[in-house]
């Protein structure tokens, strides 16, 4: 929804998910190659954080691009 507001809530959600996705993806890729010994998790060998980070990046990018405020201004 944009309404009178130049920035849609979906764009804000997209921005946050994209930020989270990049951080989680980065942290888990690093952890994959330099595993920490402090926090062992069940099924850690599946590296779920990497895939979850990628999922957040994809969802975030979709919202970020589809609801970007400058698209409306250009139109």
């Amino acid at each position, binding site marked *: 929804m944009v309404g009178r507001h130049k920035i849609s809530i979906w764009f804000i959600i997209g921005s946050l998910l994209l930020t989270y996705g990049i951080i989680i993806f980065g942290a888990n890729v690093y952890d994959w190659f330099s595993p920490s010994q402090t926090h062992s*998790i*069940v099924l850690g060998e599946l590296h*779920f*954080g990497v895939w979850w980070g990628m999922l957040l990046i994809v969802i975030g990018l979709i919202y970020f691009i589809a609801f970007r405020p400058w698209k409306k201004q250009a139109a």
Partner: protein
Amino acid sequence: MLSNFHSQGILLFSSPSSIMSLGWVDSLLVIIYFLFVLGIGYYLMRFTKTGDDFFMAGREMTAWIAGLSFVAANLGSLELMGWAASAYQYGILATHWYWIGAIPAMLFLGIVMMPFYYICKTHSVPGYLKLRFGEGASQLSALSFGFMTVFMSGINMYSMAIVMKVVLGWDINFSIWVSSLTVMVYVVLGGLLSAIFNEVLQFMLIWLGALLVPIVGLIETGGWSGMVARIHQNFPVGDYTHLWRTMGSFQDNPMGIHWTGIVFGLGMIISFAYWTTDFLVVQRVLSARDLRSAKLAPIIGAGFKMFVPLIVILPGLLGLAVMPGLVGEKEAIATGAHSYNEVLPLMLARYAGPGLLGLGVTALIAGFMSGMAGNVSAFATVWTYDIYKPIHLKIAKTEGTDAHYVKIGRWCTVIGVFISIGTAYLVQQFASIMDYVQALFSFFVAPLFGTVILGMLWKRATKAGGFWGLFAGIGSSIGMWAWVKLDPSALKYIALSPYAKDMAENMYRGLWSWLICVAVTIVVSYMTQPKPESELVGLVRGCTEIPSEGDMPLYKRPIFWAAVILAVFIVLNIIFW
């Protein structure tokens, strides 16, 4: 609706040390979240000028935004943790509170009640009562709602601070002040608009933060059938995976409840009362931009609500499969073992690596903040419009300006947050207050539904009937509660069985108090003079012209989507029978 998690007092957790600790990546995610919610409030401040902007979000929300906000305002973090704990304790029976205890009522709100709330352009549920029944019933409902809302908010705040202390080792004062002041800032700045925007954001975070547990859990157990097999292996006695099969007798299920209590008490009264008259959730729908959006919003909300058990109930069931050693609170305190109240954070710690832990904790904080923002924004609206405005009119003999009421609304938000904080500290000193405030809250819910529904559907209901019906319903609810407190053997009369547990007692007490409210309203209405029909236009069925949707394609009509949701609801109940 609240789970039994709340009613277990403040001794929610027993572990001497925190369950998990956050790394710097996790902490970074939490900090980014706080910056985003404050940024949203600051950005929306410039669009919040009028009373309609501040209290009703400008009445321009789409069906999706209003619908997601409608569900998010109810999806507090204690709701998440409490029902996950209930699922560990009672099995899949806890799902009743998400399906029969929510879906029919939400659809009923959208299809039957929303037209009247929306067409009469009320700001609140007590505002509707004022238009329909006059000052008496409206003031009674506004005062009870106003106070109970901020008290409940304080209780939730304290419980959340305890959760954060035990799960993460955070200081109680830090949790209380940081989270509540953040909510206060963004609601004061942007009003309901800011609360709704943040609730939608929080809703997404709750799902993406909590969905990890059921997905990885099902991989670990080998899918649904593997999970059920493990539960049967761990708990050979008792049925934890069927919704209705064990409801034929009070003694056959761990909840100590009969199907009549679930269907008539929960499904037909308590859930209808909460989802159709609790202003905390109804306010979100009133912000919709047109009648069709207002009707669709609760239907969209029902669609999402139906799948919340995936992130709440399923983690509890997976806990039964992979962590069978969790015990009740008293035993946990005595032995130092983990309690089932901790099942959700324990599952999170079991599966979540770097960053994902922070995402899960952010989901819990987001849940708490969305619930609290819902409470304070609803409090500010009811207090400003339904309590302050009539008093101001009486004293000043003139209406205040719109800007004046916005200013009062902002002050009410600040005061509401500080009363909540005060309540949180009061509960810390006197734990029993929690149980009494929760009981007090439950007294008003069912009778209020009786008054509102008769007001909307029955032209003959009168001003005196509305007031005395509500008064008698509330009085009888308090009377039944006190009777059982003083004489526990009275349970067999109130809940129809001496084996009934607390939840069953609440269901039946709600049912009886609703029936008493309806009966008194009908009797008194027949003894008093009704309003002329011309004064009931926009308020009552039969006197109100509801815009036709006949010219819309089928897939755009709210009734079509309500039928789809209802069909899925029935199929799910049959699958998990």
